[in-house]
């Protein structure tokens, strides 16, 4: 038994290390799809790490402002997310953001978190031909880099420190 | 004085587990039906934008109303000091909890978004009687739970009376709340009546007691214990009074409505030419649920017939079910009057016409599963707790009880 425990420990270390590699790999990899507007941008409306961790809270906060107070040009509007992150398909339209391999789905299926937004919300940007309100102040796709002096990009070290900080609060 | 001994419901294993298994089977089918409804959406039911509350709601309201009534026996025993009812108090509390749970399960599983239960429990609109009901239901579970505890545990026996009082008033509030769900709907002619709340209370007395008698007789038959004639006669006479009272309230309700010219349309619909609803009212509610049970309960020919008592209780429940059906579905089927003095000639939305409703199997199975949930809880509770007296023989001559 005693001899086994050493082997076990090593095996455990190996498995743990592999898992760690997988996780860090996921952190460094981007889920942004090539054919989307977002691919050509330096950063989202907030640093990527911030968005990864907090996008659901931002969305939830601004959704209440939109629904109850009628503020539609919010920084964190779901419509803007979709505008930017939906990938153009060969047919000329857009691929749904919750389709397999697309921006929302790839991450959510990786972390196994249910994605409920799209039970009700449109998964593709409203086509230019069927845009309802042209004169929307701030428009759907605008205001993206709002409040950002300069786009931020974090190294892996910085990112991990940020994670540690957030988790250890 | 003989001491009343309580013991867990005990009968041979195959009999108990067999019964339990069939109940669980019904529940599983009902859950499957609920899943089907939620997965495909409510289009697989007969409910629509015209009849928005259907058969599941009839079952749920029926069970919830009966739940508060089932507690009556305990109230009579410990609040009003009826010695003959005292030994039945524990079982009465258990039945009340079981019936309420069954009703709520049906109500919950019929929601458009049952996955948002947590939203329903955490965001309240205190102007809504529905939100108040959520609090009333949770409170009912707690208070009746404490009540059973007080009845069973000698150490806190002195709390029995105050808790009994609390439970009694809580159950009145609960049924008032359930009745008010309809009473507050000003827009619909069939519902807009203050008498709804007291009528629901008296309905609860009747259905609750009928449920109590049936389950008590079933439990004692199951376990091979005996119930005394005198005790049954007491319950039976009480049921008779309640059934009569329900009929009286129905009479007053319709007479009041007939006095208001504006309501003649809906009265005509329920009483004369509403097709299925008229039949349900006269045959289901009045004949099966009122007159026949009264005859069975009071006719000298059946004085000692236990079968007659059981049948009468069952008929009261069937009649009660029809009564709730007529109130819930019939009230919605009758068209709302948007333009008094005018008739609707054309509409794409069934304005001005009687809405059609044909319940589907899924709805019915879900509703029946609710009843099965109630009965399962009661069967398990009676097996695990000492709620049923070992014997309910009549007290000997000269004994207090």
């Amino acid at each position: 038994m005693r001899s086994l425990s050493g082997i076990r420990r090593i095996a455990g270390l190996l498995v743990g290390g592999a898992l760690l590699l997988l996780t860090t790999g996921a952190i460094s990899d981007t889920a942004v799809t090539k054919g989307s507007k977002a691919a050509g941008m330096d950063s989202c409306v907030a640093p990527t790490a911030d968005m990864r961790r907090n996008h659901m809270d931002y969305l939830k906060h601004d959704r209440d402002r939109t629904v109850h107070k009628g503020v539609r040009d919010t920084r964190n509007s779901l419509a803007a997310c979709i505008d930017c992150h939906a990938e153009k398909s060969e047919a000329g339209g857009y691929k749904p953001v919750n389709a397999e391999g697309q921006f929302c789905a790839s991450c959510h299926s990786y972390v196994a978190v249910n994605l409920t937004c799209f039970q009700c919300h449109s998964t593709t940007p409203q086509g230019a031909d069927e845009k309802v309100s042209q004169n929307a102040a701030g428009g759907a796709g605008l205001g993206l880099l709002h409040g950002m002096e300069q786009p931020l990009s974090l190294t892996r070290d910085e990112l991990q420190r940020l994670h540690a900080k957030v988790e250890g609060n | 004085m003989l001491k009343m001994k309580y013991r867990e419901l005990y009968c041979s294993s195959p009999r108990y587990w067999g019964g339990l298994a069939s109940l669980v089977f019904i529940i599983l089918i009902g859950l499957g039906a609920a899943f089907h409804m939620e997965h495909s959406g409510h289009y697989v039911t007969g409910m629509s934008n015209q009849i928005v509350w259907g058969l599941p709601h009839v079952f749920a309201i029926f069970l919830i109303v009966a739940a508060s009534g089932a507690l009556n026996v305990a109230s009579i025993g410990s609040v009003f000091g009826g010695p003959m009812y005292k030994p039945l108090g524990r079982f009465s509390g258990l039945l009340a909890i079981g019936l309420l749970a069954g009703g709520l399960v049906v109500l919950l599983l019929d929601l458009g978004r049952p996955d948002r239960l947590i939203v329903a429990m955490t965001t309240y609109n205190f102007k809504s009687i529905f939100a108040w009901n959520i609090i009333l239901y949770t409170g009912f579970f707690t208070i009746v739970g404490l009540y059973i505890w007080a009845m069973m545990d000698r150490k806190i026996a002195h709390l029995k009376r105050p808790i009994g009082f609390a439970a009694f008033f809580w159950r009145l509030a609960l049924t008032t709340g359930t009745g008010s769900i309809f009473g507050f709907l000003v827009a619909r002619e069939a519902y807009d009546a203050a008498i709804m709340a007291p009528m629901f209370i008296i309905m609860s007395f009747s259905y609750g007691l009928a449920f109590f008698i049936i389950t008590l007789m079933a439990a004692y038959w199951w376990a091979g214990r005996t119930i005394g004639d005198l005790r049954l006669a007491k319950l039976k006479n009480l049921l008779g009074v309640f059934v009569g009272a329900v009929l009286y309230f129905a009479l007053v309700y319709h007479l009041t409505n007939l006095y208001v010219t504006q309501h003649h349309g809906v009265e005509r619909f329920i009483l004369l030419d509403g097709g299925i609803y008229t039949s349900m009212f006269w045959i289901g509610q009045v004949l099966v649920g009122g007159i026949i049970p009264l005859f069975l309960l009071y006719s000298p020919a059946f004085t000692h017939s236990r079968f007659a008592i059981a049948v009468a209780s069952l008929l009261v429940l069937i009649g009660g079910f029809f009564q709730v059906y007529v109130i819930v579905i019939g009230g919605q089927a009758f068209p709302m009057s948007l333009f008094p003095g005018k008739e609707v000639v054309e509409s794409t939305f069934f304005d001005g016409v009687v809405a059609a409703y044909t319940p589907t199997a899924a709805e019915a199975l879900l509703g029946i599963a609710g009843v099965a949930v109630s009965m399962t809880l009661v069967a398990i509770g009676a097996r695990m707790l000492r709620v049923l007296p070992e014997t309910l023989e009549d007290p000997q001559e000269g004994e207090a009880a």
Partner: protein
Amino acid sequence: MSNRDDQPDMNRRAFLGQTALAAGAATVAPGVLLAVANGEADEGVTSDVRWGMLIDTNKCADGCTACVEACDKENGIDLIQRPQGQSDEMWNAQRPQWIRKLKVRDTQTGAVSNLPMMCQHCEHPPCVDVCPTGASFKRADGIVMVDRHTCIGCRYCMMACPYKARSFIHQDVVRQRTNAPRGKGCVESCNLCAHRIDAGQESTACQEACSAEGHKAILFGDLKDPQSEIAQALKAHESRQIRGDLELNTGVRYSNI
């Protein structure tokens, strides 16, 4: 000594208290910070305006359904698929209808009027009163709508509405328009094209369509602005609320009925 084990450990108690405090702060803080960062003190719709409609039934043409079609398109109702095998009758009873055309005849005089019927945007909406979760709500500018994020699909609001203005979504919805999210199991109704109003437009799809047809039966505007066309018209001519007996003070008024 062993007795001391029974005593509550003060350190632990203090720790628990602090943890609870911290957890509370962590829950509340992001919202507060966000609110501060965005300067949200007085933003969004105000009660200085109240949106409403005046419908002249004399101008509403028999057989014209332009308003209904425009509404269906604007709010993505035309994107909803009929479930496989559903009968016409059931589909008609179950599909959402935000606005519908009615033709009514006076039982005494025989006078016939046509009118569109939709959510009347009451000042005291029964649907808001009865909603258990507060999902059915009235915006500051008088628009009554459903917050689908908290709607549990109990349909009590549909029971309470005197106008049958609300619809329940009975089946899966695959395609939606961005401005009109929609999903199975929630209730919805006319929201006076709130997305247009929020974008600064003062028109609804139905009103636009009615004008485009040349009928001009629907007048839309701010009831509280005495200079607005609708306020002037309401002042100049007799109009009525449907089910005025309920004293709900509807935002949609009808004339010549």
